[in-house]
Every structure is written in C-alpha cells, then in structure tokens.
C-alpha cells in the first residue's frame, strides 16, 4: 500500500517540479511549487516523521508560498507571461542538469552498499521537542538558540529593507 503511494507521490513531485520551472505564468509556477512541497510532506508522513511533515506543511507550504504569492501580487505582474529563455541558455542548462544527474546517479549506484535498518519506532512530538531543548548528549539546545537569533536578525533585516523607501520619501 505505502509502496504504491510512494511511487505515485514521487511521480507527482517530479511532474509538478518540471511544470514549476517551465510554465510561463508566474502564479502557476508558485502553485506547482506548492504541490511539490505538499508531496514532500506526504513522503515525510510515509517515513512516519509526523512532526517534520507538519512542520513542512505549516512553514513551507503555508508560510513561504503565501509570502511568495503575496509579493508576486505586490509587484503586480500576474497577468503578463514570463519571457521565453533563449535556446542557448536552455541547451546549456539541460546539459548541466543531465551531466549532474548522471554523475550523482553513477556515484549512488556504484557505491550503494548501504546497510539499511528497519525500525518500527515512531518519534512523537514530545520526544523531538525534548531532544531539541536538551543540552545533554544528542541534545540540540545550542543550534536551536542560534536559529532563534538568526530568525530575529532576518526579521529585523526584512523590516529595514521594506522601510527604506518610506524614509526617503519623508526627507
């Protein structure tokens, strides 16, 4: 059951990703990206990392996509089509991507002596959260604090970036 579900999700993710980078309507690109992110959350659910899947849905699919769509509307260019990339660019980018895929797959398939382990364990939110704030072994208190400072810095930076224009007008 979950095997078929995985392959359906994988095909859907790849399809929407290709549509997202090739469509010429910018709002559609954003919506296709949303589907890719939801598919990723589905893969996390299949791996039974429920907390991560919820995080993916709320932060990525909920937060970032809404931010992108709102700013696309702010720059009011929803209706005009994106210009076509020129042929040379398409050819070069395709060559880069195909060579990259070939290289990575060559490495993966030639060195694939992974010793996989099966575990029935499901990590609940409480365990994850306790590990996130613990400063013992396998605790992540320090990166957690660093991330919170980074988020504060990013928030201040975003506000200052957005306010600069207003100040200039007042002067």
């Amino acid at each position, binding site marked *: 059951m979950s095997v078929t579900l995985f392959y359906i999700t994988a095909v859907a993710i790849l399809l929407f990703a290709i549509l997202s*980078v090739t469509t010429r309507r910018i709002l559609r690109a954003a919506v296709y990206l949303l589907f*890719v992110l939801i598919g990723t959350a589905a893969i996390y659910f299949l791996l039974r990392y429920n907390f991560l899947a919820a995080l993916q849905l709320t932060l*990525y699919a909920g937060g970032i996509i809404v931010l992108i769509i709102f700013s696309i509307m702010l720059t009011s260019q929803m209706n005009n089509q994106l210009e076509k990339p020129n042929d040379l660019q398409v050819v070069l*980018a395709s060559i880069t*991507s195909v060579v990259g895929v070939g290289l990575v797959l060559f490495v993966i398939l030639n060195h694939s002596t992974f010793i996989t382990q099966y*575990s029935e364990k499901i990590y609940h939110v409480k365990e994850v959260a306790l590990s996130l704030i613990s400063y013992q072994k396998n605790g992540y208190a320090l990166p957690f604090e660093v991330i919170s400072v980074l988020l504060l810095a990013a928030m201040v930076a975003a506000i200052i970036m957005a306010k600069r224009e207003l100040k200039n007008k007042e002067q």
Partner: protein
Amino acid sequence: MIQGVPLQHILLLTTLLFFIGVYGFFTRKNLFTMLMSVELMLNAVAINFVVFNAYLFPENLQGHFFTIFIVSIAAAEAAVAIAIIVNVYRNIRTVNAERINEMKH
C-alpha cells in the same frame, strides 16, 4: 523507512528534483522564479537528510534536526530575499535579473 522501497529509489527522486531546480535556476530570468528554483533544491536536500536518517540510523535523530533547521533557515532566507526583491521593484520597476545592472561595470 518505507517497507518495500529501496533507498536508491528515493535518492533517484531527490537527485532528479535537485537538478530540475538547477535547470530552473539557470533558465529563469524573473527573480521570483529563481527563488522558487532555490526552494526546490533546498527541498531535495532536506528529503535526502531525512531519508538517510530513516534508512541508516533510525535510532538517532540527526537528519531529522538538520531538516528542521534547513526549513527554518529557508523561511528566514525567503523573507529577506523577498524584502530585497520588493525593494528592487520599487526602485527600478522590474524584477528581471538581467535588467538589474546598475552597479555593473
């Protein structure tokens, strides 16, 4: 892990997803669509972290936390990038990467 799905198949998925992102980043000219391509690449890497954690070290949570941090950094990055793009649009009325050449020499 997902019973019955080998690790290689998921790695194939993330590889293809990553290089679709690379293709988009090289061919797009609009700043928003370039940002979306970067999100695709970040997403592929995040899946890789989770999958390696789930298949190879299911008793630990390192890959899990890496992905949590990737997602939060991506949120911060998107906020700052979009603030910059909106500011660029206000100043020169375009979000085309090729027309942003004021500081170029």
